[in-house]
C-alpha cells in the first residue's frame, strides 16, 4: 500500500496531504476544547442564575415574614425597610453583570423577572413615606404590601421552577 502511494504521489504531495490532515485534526481538537469550555461556562452561569433565583425567592419570603410579624410586634418598620432594600439588591442582580447577560438570553425568565421588578418598584413608592415617618404604616398599607409580596412570591416561585427546568 505504502509502495503504491510512493509510486503514484510525489514527496511534496504526500507532505502536503499529511500536513492538511494534521491541521484538520488540530483544528478539531482545539474546537472541541473551546466548545467544552464554553459549555462549562454556560452551565456555571446557569447555576449562578439558579442560585440567584433561589436567593430572590428567599428574600421575598423573609420580607413577607417581617410584614406578618409586625402586627404581633416582633418586627419594626426599620426591619421592613432593611429587608426591602436587600430584596431590591437581589432584583438588581438580574439586570446587570453575568447574571444579567444570561437573563437577557432567556426570554421567558426575563419576562417573569420584569414582572417582579414592576411589583418591587410599586412597593418602593409605597415605602418612601416610611423612611421619614414610621407612623405612616397603617393596616391598609400593611395589607397592600402583604398582597404585593404574595403576588411576588408566586412569581419568584415560578422563576425558580422555570430556571430549574432550563438548567436540567
Amino acid at each position, binding site marked *: 500500500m505504502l509502495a503504491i502511494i510512493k509510486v503514484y504521489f510525489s514527496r511534496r504531495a504526500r507532505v502536503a496531504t499529511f500536513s492538511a490532515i494534521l491541521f484538520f485534526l488540530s483544528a478539531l481538537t482545539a474546537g472541541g476544547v473551546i466548545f467544552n469550555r464554553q459549555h462549562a461556562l454556560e452551565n456555571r452561569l446557569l447555576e449562578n442564575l439558579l442560585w440567584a433565583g433561589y436567593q430572590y425567592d428567599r428574600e421575598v419570603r*423573609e420580607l413577607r415574614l417581617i410584614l406578618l410579624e409586625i402586627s404581633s410586634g416582633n418586627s419594626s418598620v426599620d426591619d421592613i425597610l432593611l429587608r426591602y432594600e*436587600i430584596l*431590591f*439588591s437581589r432584583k*438588581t442582580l438580574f439586570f*446587570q*453583570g453575568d447574571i444579567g447577560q444570561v437573563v437577557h438570553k432567556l426570554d421567558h425568565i426575563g419576562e417573569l423577572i420584569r414582572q417582579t421588578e414592576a411589583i418591587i418598584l410599586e412597593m418602593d413608592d409605597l415605602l418612601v413615606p416610611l423612611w421619614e415617618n414610621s407612623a405612616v404604616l397603617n393596616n391598609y398599607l400593611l395589607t397592600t404590601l402583604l398582597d404585593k409580596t404574595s403576588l411576588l412570591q408566586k412569581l419568584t416561585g415560578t422563576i425558580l421552577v422555570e430556571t430549574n427546568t432550563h438548567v436540567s
Partner: protein
Amino acid sequence: MRRRTMIHRQCHSAKVSPRPNVHHRSMGQKCRAYILVALLVLLSSHAIALDLPEGPVILVVSGKVGHTNVGNEAHFDKAMLEALTQHETLTHTPWYDGEVRFSGPLGRDILEAVGAEGESLRVVALNDYASTLPISDFENFDVILAMQANGKTLRVRDHGPLFVIYPFDQYPELLNEEILSRSVWQVKRIDIN
C-alpha cells in the same frame, strides 16, 4: 489633666525641698520617671482608644481586637470609615457591567485600626450570609471594603454599605469561585479569629 498637675506639684516641691542633694537627685529621677510613665500611659491610651461612633453604626468588628470603643467590639460609623485612607480599585466584577471604580478603606487598614490579632476573618452580611477569609488576603492584596462605586455611595440596595472587593483585574487568578464567595456584599460585621 489632674495627674499632670499632681506630677508638676511633686516636681516643684522636690525642687524646694531642704533635703540633702543625694535625695534631691533621686526625687528628680522619680519625677522624670513619673513623667515618662505618664507619657507612656497617655500614648498607649491614645493608641487603644477608638472614637465613639456618632452616626449609625455600619460595621462592627469583634473577636481578637485590641482597640475597642463599645464593650469588647469596635464600632464604626460612615465618618469613621471615611476618615481612614480611601483606596480606589478599578476592576471588572461578575456583578456589574463593565469596569467599575470602587473606593473605600483597605481591609488591612481597618484591621490595623482595631488592633486585630488573628489569622482569619468571618465576614457577615446583613442577611446573615457569612464567609471566612484568611487575613493573608488583606495582607497580600489591596482588598477594600468598598463604600462607593463610580463615585456613588453604595446603599443597601446597591449591595452596600460595604462590599469586599478584590483587585480582580490586577490579579486575574483571583477570579475563581473560592475568592468570589469571599467577596461579601452588604457587610455588617467582621469577627476576627
